[in-house]
């Protein structure tokens, strides 16, 4: 099956844009922290040159912040690079544990803005399905956005990867606010087009407060 519909293409482009904007925003923040703390080190140096006393332990705190933010930026770039390469192959064997980890990394800002906590529960490794990597991420990104709107008061979202008979499934739960969110209509036209292209299915189980995505090996 090929992904050629205009709607799917536009949906993918939107997801790509939204994700890169979000990650680059986080990168900007990491760089801003590095710059400000490097500036602070410079301020300390000027103070030392002028003979103004300062606490030497401050140096370690500031240096640690720079180190931490450099790692943060490096991780963000690594995930962004993996996301960029997800479009390389129209069809590939995808480890769902890795795909869900990547999704979690790419959407961490969206999760943070909702003040939600993400919990990942991975299945046996590797848990592979043959699918279209970029479109899978796009669809899961839509599931994430929908799920974040349907969280309960504790704002915990659990992503669970499970093996099933003819493939695997990914569960988004607990969606305690599902009744309200359901009125928004999910899956909508864009998600249905993606599901058709992925040869996948999804359904909402209101009793289990869960969004279930079924992926079969194609």
């Amino acid at each position, binding site marked *: 099956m090929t992904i050629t519909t205009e709607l799917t293409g536009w949906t993918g482009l939107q997801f790509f844009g939204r994700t890169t904007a979000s990650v680059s925003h*986080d990168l*900007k923040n990491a760089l801003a922290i590095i710059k*400000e703390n490097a500036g602070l080190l410079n301020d300390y140096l000027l103070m030392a040159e002028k003979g103004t006393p300062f606490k030497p332990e401050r140096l370690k705190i*500031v240096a640690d912040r720079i180190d931490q933010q450099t790692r943060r930026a490096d991780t963000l770039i690594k995930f962004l690079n993996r996301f960029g390469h997800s479009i390389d192959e129209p069809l590939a064997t995808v480890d769902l544990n890795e795909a869900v980890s990547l999704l979690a990394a790419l959407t961490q800002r969206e999760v943070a803005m909702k003040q939600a906590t993400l919990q990942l529960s991975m299945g046996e490794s590797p848990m592979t399905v043959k699918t279209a990597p970029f479109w899978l991420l796009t669809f899961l990104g839509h599931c994430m956005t929908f799920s974040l709107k349907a969280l309960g008061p504790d704002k915990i979202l659990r992503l669970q990867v499970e093996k099933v008979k003819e493939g695997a499934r990914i569960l988004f739960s607990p969606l305690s606010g599902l009744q309200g969110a359901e009125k928004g209509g999910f899956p909508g036209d864009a998600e249905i087009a993606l599901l058709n292209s992925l040869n996948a299915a999804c359904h909402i189980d209101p009793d289990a407060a869960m969004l279930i995505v079924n992926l079969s090996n194609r």
Partner: protein
Amino acid sequence: MRVLLVDDEVDLASALAERLDLRGIKADWVTTAHAALDKAEAVDYDLAILDVKMPKIGGLELRQRLHERHPRMKFIFVTGYGSEMDFNKVKCQEGETCYMVKPVDIEDLLKRMKDLLGQSGGDQ
């Protein structure tokens, strides 16, 4: 000059506040809009430096709320966006509000602060 810094990135807010302190500007910092509103009730700030994107209440809404309660307060927005997209979202009022893109340069920031407050270099 009394300044309130509001940014959900703790290590950014605290470092910037310390750098301002070292330059003789009394700066407090908080990481949420709610904390900022509380803080502004207790302290008479001349200026607030606000991150645009924050959980729950963002910088734009926070500015509105602070302005209603403290009409003399001036504002500088800082944003992580690389483009000037956000600049167009705010009705920048001449002499009251201005925008900067992260990472900001401390000297530029100081200049903006002084411009907004109508101060010369040596009267902090």
